[in-house]
């Protein structure tokens, strides 16, 4: 052992310790997985059940962790061994977390592809029984309801956060913070019932409108917007506020032209995440926006279909041709995911343009 390492050590500088070649961990991983596969095969053969990939992964992972730690301990020393062990654990946890995500996306894409066609995006469900039809009315509904929810909650949320960070002192600020925290925990169905009760006061029992849905969603959105904006405003260095104030700039202009632009990228990201959080809400919309097979561009009046409600509806009450309904439900889910993705990409682009430039 020493004879194989010694020559290379003397040739290098005295600060280098023994090192594993870069391929060694991969080699160990391969061997571990092979052993895992062999064990899985044995179990499958003995019990007559199917060959289990889970067992391969589990056994391979544990074997890899043990072997890489032991080998590294012997050749590289304790600190490196701990590093390799923790690296292995972290990557393992990452892959584990990735499995449900990938599986979800694959399932939705595979099942949603069946009806991902032009008709799906250009038709409503008016007078459709069985196959065919589309979700244009639900896409329009989702976009309108979410847009109005954002119109309501973004100003409220941002101004609340500005108050809390820049002005709020004492009891009122504490109370607001407390109630924002409470709002974070409101179940979405309660938000829906609240919006229904509120609109029923004015329009009578049985009221249905897109705006009601927007109000319900904004109840869920406001606390998220407040929280994220608050964090972003707190990140703006006090130096910048003082620099601006010292130039004789009034406080409100300092906030509008120094603090907000500096935090803008983060605020935009926060708002997008808040939108992504509510765009898939079903329960409150089921109550107050209702469902319909027709197009409705007017948020102020009448039932309005939305994508999550559409998917739920197609799934819960399939007609005779079940498969057509299930296909539409999956495709609607796929469209919803795509909309959220587009929103996120849009936010990235905006954040990129507004981010403070380091310029170095």
């Amino acid at each position, binding site marked *: 052992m020493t004879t194989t390492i010694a020559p290379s050590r003397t040739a290098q500088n005295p600060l280098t310790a023994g090192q594993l070649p870069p391929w060694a961990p991969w080699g160990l991983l391969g061997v571990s997985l092979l052993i895992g596969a062999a064990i899985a095969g044995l179990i499958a053969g003995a019990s007559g059940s199917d060959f289990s990939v889970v067992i391969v992964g589990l056994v391979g992972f544990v074997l890899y962790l043990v072997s890489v730690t032991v080998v590294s301990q012997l050749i590289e020393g304790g600190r490196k061994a701990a590093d390799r062990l923790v690296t292995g654990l972290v990557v393992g946890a990452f892959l584990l977390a990735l499995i449900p995500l990938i599986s979800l996306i694959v399932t939705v894409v595979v099942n949603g592809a069946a009806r991902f066609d032009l008709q799906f995006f250009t038709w409503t469900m008016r007078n459709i029984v069985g196959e065919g039809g589309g979700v244009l009315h639900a896409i329009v509904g989702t976009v309108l309801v979410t847009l109005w929810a954002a119109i309501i909650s973004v100003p409220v949320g941002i101004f609340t956060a500005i108050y809390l960070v820049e002005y709020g002192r004492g009891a009122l600020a504490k109370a607001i913070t407390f109630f924002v925290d409470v709002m974070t925990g409101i179940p979405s169905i309660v938000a829906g019932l609240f919006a229904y009760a509120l609109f029923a006061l004015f329009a009578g029992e049985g009221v249905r409108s897109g705006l009601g849905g927007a109000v319900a969603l904004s109840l869920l959105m406001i606390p998220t917007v407040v929280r994220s904006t608050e964090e972003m405003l707190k990140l703006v260095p006090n*130096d*910048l506020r003082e620099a*601006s*104030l010292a*130039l004789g700039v009034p406080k409100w*202009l300092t906030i509008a032209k120094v603090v907000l632009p*500096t935090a803008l990228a983060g605020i935009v990201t926060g708002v997008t995440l808040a939108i992504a959080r509510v765009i898939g809400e079903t329960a409150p919309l089921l109550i107050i926006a209702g469902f319909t097979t027709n197009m409705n561009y007017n948020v102020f009046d009448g039932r309005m279909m939305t994508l999550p409600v559409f998917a739920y509806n197609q799934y819960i009450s399939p007609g005779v041709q079940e498969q057509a309904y299930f296909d539409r439900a999956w495709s609607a889910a796929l469209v919803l995911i795509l909309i959220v993705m587009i929103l996120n990409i849009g936010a990235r682009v905006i954040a990129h343009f507004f981010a403070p430039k380091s310029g170095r």
Partner: protein
Amino acid sequence: MSKRIEINDLDIYYGAFKAVEGVSIDIEPRAVTAFIGPSGCGKSTVLRSLNRMHEVIAGAYVDGEVLLDGANLYGPGVDPVNVRRQIGMVFQRPNPFPTMTIRENVLAGVLLNNRRMSRSDQDDLVERSLRGANLWNEVKDRLGVPGSGLSGGQQQRLCIARAIAVSPDVLLMDEPCSALDPISTLAIEDLIEELKTEYTIVIVTHNMQQASRVSDKTAFFNIAGTGKPGKLIEFDETAKIFSNPSVQSTEDYVSGRFG
């Protein structure tokens, strides 16, 4: 356009904590006044109370008078925003606005206040201020790049340019060179020398040589112990403070025997 500042029996508080007690100083126009003293004795606190930046901190307030050419800054109905437009400030750490270019940083006092100004006037102001801060030659070809991309010393001179662009009567500087190398420090000291022909300048510094090089008058502050308020010990011509002070603790401090 430089004005005299008179501080009369000023007490300065952070909430319940009295940080500075009983300060009275006459700050001459067209001269450099230096504040020296051990850390925590309240130099920055006094400086910040001269343009009402002290009260920006929650719970902070002052008791006493600060007169700018006879007008009390802390009189009833005085708008701190107006005070700060006449008394500019340069901070210890360079703090250019990260969202703005070099040009915009210099114009910050104009742009942030939504004041209208023609393009050519703006160009003039940028050049004049940057020349005033000895920075023009280094940045004239890249006025459009972000201000945070400059070196620390250049950023500090940018902040000085930003402060003089609003043509204040008084310029307050809180350890403007503490983050800078000797060459940038010299550049800023030269700059202070030039600026004092037009402005009243107050500078806080920990560097005795700097105080003796740039200032005409020096105020020495000291503190009796932690939790006690800082006090003005001696205020006199700089030459006198450094050669033949009248209080023993001043002599100990400037000769390096304590603090």
